[in-house]
């Protein structure tokens, strides 16, 4: 009698010699903590992005050639627009399920970036980036910044009013790079903004091929390195040590959980895509370089750059009448590079400062490393406040708080609040540690007291207190 499970497994093993590997992979250990799922959410969003993105390329026309609109959306009929914008309007209104897929794609991009950022915070505050996992950390950072560019290009391809304004700012930032900015901008765009028509093809191939492949490769190596060194774990019990990883095996325990998460992520994204409108491009209209609109906001993950561009005081670095560094360079180029540099160098900076060159498979809780936690909170708050200022014009509209007042508040707050938080959080961590220490001493003392003196039940607690005070 043939065994329907054994037979295919034997077929595969005989041809690939992979049974030992399969056995090992099925027993790969996943330590248990909810925060370990954040990276998976990012990976699953990426899968949804690929799937919906491929569908969109079947209808999207990456062309800036002008056409006149005669589709189903009446308010735009007769308007002159690019084929790119026209095809996205058609995806939204003329193709069955097109709007659902397009909006799901956009929501998935937002979730992809959000889950990467939260995952980054988890890894930072638990010290998971320490030796031997520094490369995994760097790969993750590269994915974050590649994702940023990928999202920006997707937003820009559509050629609606907002995407064109976003590209104009990108052009301004490119031009502002010292020495090479002007020639570089012309090289990328092929001509002064809005560039040659080929610029759309350049963005398209980068958005649908080069950058997704780069992200996929980075993700594969990221995961391969995680598996090679195994997952980190919290010190939940004394059995969790630097030598032994404890958790649920990939099969049968972990696989259905993770698949459930995948379907959950997909469900949320498709529900959002169906029910919650995102980037209604038909309302903005097509882009022309001479058009602009007030209240323009980019996707959330670019908000920190808008905030930085808006916060900078007005100056170009000049010698006499010669312009060296135009203003957008600081907020649009140097600021994100600085953040990337600090985060990328952090594992090595911390090691130098703490002289901790050891291997770490066990995670810290945030309180276990007060200075790191305090620095992380301060640094992220600094970025978050700059991000928040990017919405100051909306705050003005909603709450009537003058833009100018907000500008001066933020220019001070982005320095003062992180500094206060640094000292506050460090102290808080130390006090949590101290409180825990007292608890431990108290417990040890109680135990000792009960062992040595074996007092009557009623007298136990006072005895413990005495032991503590002594």
């Amino acid at each position, binding site marked *: 009698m043939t065994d329907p499970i054994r037979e295919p497994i034997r077929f595969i093993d005989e041809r690939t010699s992979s049974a030992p590997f399969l056995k090992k992979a099925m027993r790969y250990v996943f330590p248990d903590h909810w925060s370990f799922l954040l990276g998976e959410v990012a990976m699953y969003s990426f899968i949804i992005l690929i799937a919906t993105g491929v569908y969109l390329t079947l209808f999207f026309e990456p062309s800036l050639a002008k056409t006149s609109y005669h589709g189903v959306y009446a308010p735009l009929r007769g308007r002159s627009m690019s084929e790119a914008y026209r095809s996205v309007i058609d995806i939204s209104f003329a193709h069955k399920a097109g709007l659902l897929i397009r909006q799901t794609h956009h929501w998935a991009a937002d979730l992809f970036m959000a889950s990467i950022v939260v995952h980054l915070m988890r890894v930072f505050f638990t010290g998971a980036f320490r030796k031997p996992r520094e490369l995994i950390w760097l790969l993750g950072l590269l994915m974050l910044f590649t994702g940023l560019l990928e999202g920006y290009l997707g937003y820009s391809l559509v050629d609606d009013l907002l995407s064109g304004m976003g590209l104009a700012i990108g052009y301004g930032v490119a031009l502002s790079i010292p020495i090479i900015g002007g020639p570089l901008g012309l090289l990328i*765009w092929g001509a002064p903004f809005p560039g040659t028509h080929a610029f759309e093809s350049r963005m398209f191939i980068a958005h649908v091929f080069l950058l997704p492949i780069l992200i996929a490769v980075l993700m594969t190596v990221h995961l391969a390195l995680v598996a090679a060194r195994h997952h980190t774990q919290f010190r939940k019990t004394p059995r969790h040590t630097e030598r032994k990883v404890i958790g649920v095996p990939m099969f049968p325990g972990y696989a*259905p959980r993770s698949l*459930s998460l*995948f379907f959950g992520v997909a469900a949320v994204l498709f529900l959002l895509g*169906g029910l919650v409108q995102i980037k209604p491009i038909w309302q903005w209209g097509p882009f022309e*370089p001479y058009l602009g609109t007030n209240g323009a906001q980019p996707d959330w993950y670019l908000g920190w750059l808008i905030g930085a*561009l808006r916060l900078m005081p007005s100056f170009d670095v000049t010698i006499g009448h*010669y312009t060296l560094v135009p203003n957008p360079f600081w907020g649009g180029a140097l600021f994100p590079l600085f953040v990337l540099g600090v985060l990328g160098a952090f594992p090595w900076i911390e090691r130098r400062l703490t002289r901790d060159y050891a291997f770490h498979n066990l995670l810290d809780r945030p309180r276990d490393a007060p200075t790191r936690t305090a620095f992380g909170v301060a640094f992220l708050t600094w970025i978050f406040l700059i991000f928040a200022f990017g919405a100051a014009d909306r705050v003005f509209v909603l709450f009537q708080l003058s833009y100018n007042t907000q500008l001066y508040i933020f220019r001070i707050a982005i320095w003062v609040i992180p500094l206060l938080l640094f000292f506050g959080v460090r102290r808080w961590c130390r006090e949590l540690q101290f409180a825990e220490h007292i608890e431990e001493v108290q417990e040890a003392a109680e135990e000792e007291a009960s062992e040595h003196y074996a007092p009557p039940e009623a007298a136990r607690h006072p005895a413990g207190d005495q032991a503590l005070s002594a």
Partner: protein
Amino acid sequence: MLIALVTLFLAVLLRRARQRSDEAERIIPEGSAERAAENLAVGLLGLASLFAIGFIVAYAEWSAWKVPNELLGICLGLSLASISAALAVVAKRLVVTEQIEHDYPPEQHSQEEQEVTQMVRESGTRITRKRLLMGAGAAAGGALGIAVITPALSLGPLWYTDPLYRTPWKRGVRLIDETGRPYAASDIETETFYTAFAEGSSLEDLASPVVVVRLDPSALKLPPERSQWAPGGILAYSKICTHAGCAIALYRKPKFPVLEPRPQLVCPCHYSTFDPATGGAVTYGPAGRALPQLPLMVDGSGELRAGGNFSGPVGPSWWGVRSGKAT
């Protein structure tokens, strides 16, 4: 297909339970059967099928007027959510969730590291001039690498910024609107602004669009050399912000006349603000360079024409921008 996979997975579990007696020793610990959980999982999977069929029906019936996008999203989303819930039931109640231990890999493999080092070292013992060979290899690799990326320079002009200075404006060019109609000086009223283009230029040319406003001639504080640039108080400035290249789409009426005696031109991207009365000087926001002004004149038939080229290069700034002139 996914539903089929899950069903197969369940079938495998059931069969495993039946074949228990055949197997020598269990690897995965035993657990008790949970009929209720199985029923729940089957029910959820059934629900997933129903929603999936619902999606197909909605798709077939779809038109923007009959079946809304929302229904498609709800059907697909709830189908996926049902599968997610079924898998959660499988994970929590139908498979055994063991805690197992595994050794972390060793910190290093000293023996193998040593052997690899030795192999690399020994592989080169026949070569007497290692430095020279490595140097030649690096040079060849570098040269070929540069050669391979050279074609990328065809993307655009190389180290040539002249196009950034070019504009379609020169003395005598008429100011036209979006539809091609020339502006007459008498068309321009105060307290509003107009977008004009250079006659004969593309609407996409960054250096073509200008904002045209009219101010009280007595309120103008233009530099002395520009005293003839604003006939009848009509002023024209490049519509492209010198900060990051967005269009100057706002003309702000003074809210607090004490602080702001005149209306200002504002870019909505980062709120760079320029004063039309003083030759486009930056009065607020991050821009570091004044808005280029276009000299105007009124011809015999009362139409607006450029009196020359801009006062400076148009668009966002770059290294050395101010030392060139708009051409």
